[in-house]
């Protein structure tokens, strides 16, 4: 029976790989693969395969030397302990092995024992374990160490967590079947944790010399204290099994690795035995979990990430939608609802007042700069980043509605209004966020005495930025939407197609393309601003001219955005749902 399951697993993997290789014949996947491959190589690969400069470069090698081995191992073991505890504390559901719907349809009615299904699940989970280990290896290789020790070390850690997760879910279900509720289980576990923590605390307080906050400027005192707590007393006993799991990763010689890997394998075998011996009915919960997984996948493939939210609840509309008026407002209303329930006018007003008060207080407490300047500068940087990151996060526009395009196309709305309505939601949200950032930066930097700019000039710049931002955001959102309508197959491939290096490359190409178009769109506005500013500066002060120059810039951006809306509307009206939606 196991051979049939292995056959399914093997051929699914091979067929998926072959399909990915074959689709490289299409330029969109080939270019994506090249760009993604280069990105992967320069970011991870050269370290992974030993071509990188981790030995000569600035990254310090993380080696568990005698001095810090205990500390590093124990800290890592502590992290493992917390993960294991959370697996017993947090979940509420009964044990469920997540299968695909096809697997449920074929395997559950088939003459396969429960143990056979568990074996199938374990084999399949090894694929995910290997992939996760590879990614973690790529991330940690830049700090040096032995490739094989790290690879096997990560595999051991991830496999242990995977097996423990399965075993603990079975055990929780058995407890539920015996009448021990989730609440009782949690209370008992929390009680045990509290007793253990109190024991360690009391021991440390009595045995380890205390240290003062002033003596930890360079961290040495804290490190010494942590070493003492972790290496002696009750904590090493608690962490011992977890250190056994971690230890192969930090081995530096083959003999040390072999000596460490034996106990790790023993733990893995014990966990495997525990999982296999557990006789828990998981079928019903598994069918339910598989259906939920399928629904989530379908929603993601449809570009509707919001629907993947398990706890999706009806949201209060941001304002009352009257039945008459510009139809574009209905789309704005719809998209703000889809974004989140927090986007209400009242909330933004409260936020603005609260932030103003807070910033004034911070400014008064730090009149010469310091914290106020840092926060102000960070707000300014966040504002710049929002131009690039905002459209990637807020997707309540054509990109979300693309698979419902046939519904939208039946609406009696002129194309440009449709485009405006589709974009208004994310533009309004991002503009509100940006205005808050401008408020923070303006108030904090305006109060700082050490700056070379006067308070009036800071306020003038803040006002100018606030004037320009709505139009700028309108353009910023037009670019990815136009890209999605012009290249829907590409767009859908990046959104919903199977992942992989080519999909990553496609996302990079999209991002770079959007950045270049944005720069191009900003050129006329920048020219107008520069002209108005320098012309005005001949007659009036900069503080006076900046908001007015910004107004002129906003007009230019508004004209550009208007042309963009007309173009976007045309693109949407020509967008053929039937012929375009196949990636």
């Amino acid at each position, binding site marked *: 029976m196991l051979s049939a399951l292995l056959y399914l697993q093997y051929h699914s993997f091979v067929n998926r790989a072959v399909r990915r290789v074959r689709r490289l014949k299409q330029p969109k996947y080939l270019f994506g693969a090249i760009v993604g491959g280069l990105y992967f190589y320069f970011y991870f690969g050269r370290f992974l395969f030993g071509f990188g400069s981790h030995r000569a470069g600035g990254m310090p090698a993380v080696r568990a030397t005698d001095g810090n081995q205990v500390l590093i191992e124990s800290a890592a073991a502590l992290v493992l302990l917390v993960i294991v505890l959370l697996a017993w504390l947090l979940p509420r559901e009964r044990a469920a092995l997540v299968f695909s719907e096809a697997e449920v349809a074929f395997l559950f009615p088939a003459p396969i024992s429960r143990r056979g299904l568990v074996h199938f699940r374990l084999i399949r989970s090894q694929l995910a374990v290997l992939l996760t280990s590879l990614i973690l290896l790529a991330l940690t290789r830049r700090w040096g160490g032995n490739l094989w020790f790290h690879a096997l070390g990560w595999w051991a850690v991830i496999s242990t967590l995977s097996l423990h997760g399965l075993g603990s879910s079975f055990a929780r279900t058995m407890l539920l079947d015996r009448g021990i509720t989730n609440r009782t289980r949690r209370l008992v576990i929390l009680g045990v944790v509290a007793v253990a923590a109190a024991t360690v605390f009391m021991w440390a307080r009595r045995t380890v010399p205390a240290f003062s906050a002033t003596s930890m400027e360079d961290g040495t005192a804290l490190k010494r204290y942590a070493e003492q707590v972790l290496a002696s007393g009750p904590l090493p006993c608690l962490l011992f099994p977890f250190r056994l799991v971690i230890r192969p990763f930090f081995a530096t010689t083959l003999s040390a690795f072999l000596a460490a890997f034996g106990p790790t394998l023993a733990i893995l075998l014990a966990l495997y035995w525990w999982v296999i011996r557990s006789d828990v009915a998981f079928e019903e919960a598994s069918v339910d979990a598989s259906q939920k997984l399928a629904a989530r996948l379908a929603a993601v493939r449809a570009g509707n990430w919001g*629907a993947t939210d398990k706890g999706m609840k009806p949201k209060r509309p941001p304002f009352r939608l009257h039945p008459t008026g510009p139809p574009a407002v*209905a789309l704005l209303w719809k998209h703000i609802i889809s974004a989140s329930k927090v986007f209400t006018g009242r909330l933004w007003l409260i936020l603005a007042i609260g932030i103003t008060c807070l910033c004034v207080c911070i400014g008064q407490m730090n009149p010469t700069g310091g914290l106020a300047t840092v926060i102000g500068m960070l707000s300014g940087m966040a504002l710049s980043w929002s131009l690039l990151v905002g459209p990637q996060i807020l997707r309540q526009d054509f990109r979300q509605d693309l698979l419902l395009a*046939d519904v939208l*196309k039946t*609406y009696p709305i002129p194309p440009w209004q449709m485009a405006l309505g589709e974009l208004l939601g994310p533009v309004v949200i991002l503009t509100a966020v940006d205005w808050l950032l401008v408020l923070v930066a303006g108030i904090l930097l305006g109060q700082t005495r050490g700056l070379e700019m006067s308070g009036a000039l800071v306020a003038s710049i803040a006002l100018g930025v606030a004037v320009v931002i709505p139009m700028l955001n309108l353009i910023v959102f037009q670019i990815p939407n136009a890209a999605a309508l012009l290249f829907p197959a590409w767009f859908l491939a990046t959104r919903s197609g199977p992942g992989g290096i080519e999909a990553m490359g496609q996302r990079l190409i999209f991002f770079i393309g959007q950045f270049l178009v944005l720069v191009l769109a900003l050129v006329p506005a920048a020219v107008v601003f520069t002209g108005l500013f320098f012309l005005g500066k001949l007659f009036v002060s900069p503080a006076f001219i900046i908001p007015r120059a910004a107004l002129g810039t906003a007009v230019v951006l508004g004209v550009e955005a208007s042309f963009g809306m007309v173009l976007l509307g045309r693109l949407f009206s020509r967008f053929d749902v039937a012929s375009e939606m196949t990636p």
Partner: protein
Amino acid sequence: MIEVEGLTKLYGEFVAVNELGFRVERGQVLGLVGPNGAGKTTSLRCLSGIIRPTCGTIRICGTDLVNNPVPAKRELAFFSDEPRLFDYLTVQQHLAFTARIYQVRDYETIGRQLLDELELSEKRDALPGELSRGMKQKLAIACGWLHNPKVIYFDEPLTGLDPMGIRRMKHSILKRAGEGAAIIISSHLLHLVEEICTHILILKNGRKIIHGTIGEITRQFSEQTDDTSLEEVFFRAAYAEGERRPKANGAEPPAARGAVPPTNP
């Protein structure tokens, strides 16, 4: 109400719909039938303004749909085979949204009546994810009826409905037709078409094979027998010729290659 002349839709060289022409008057129900890939859904999508025809004219209540789409679309409603709803809007919010799109002033009264009629009143604050397939269909219908359309298209309207839902849907279609709406139904369910349609249009390979009232078509293909069903008429009309879909350059379409026409039962 619906006037179609020379409607043609090309996908590259592939002819999906070829020179289609017909009229549907007030109160008439036209059944659009044909084998898979005949061009029914493409035709309906062109007729509802979802896709632009390559050439031809479509008039909805006298307004050209291609050149003047906004007023034309205000008069029509299109129901696809799967109810297409917004996951994050509740039942009530769907109605409010649709009302604004179609500028329905008294939508609250109409919406309440529709929800009562469709037994959805208790679900007014539910999201589509909390509704059954049939309830989603009802919500889509409520949204479609809200602006009292004069032209209505249904693409496989009975898909996924239970017997009670099927009865209600048929009743609803006939009621709308009785009130003067022009209706087109695309369906493979010939008994449904026979039961509620006044006219039939059989499409094959994007071309009109036959168009007329059920009586006319039945008489034409009855071969001197009185008990000829629409199913029999359909097979005789659709598979008699063994014709192939034309292409702009005369080549065969991908779907037609190697396709074996079904035998006449």
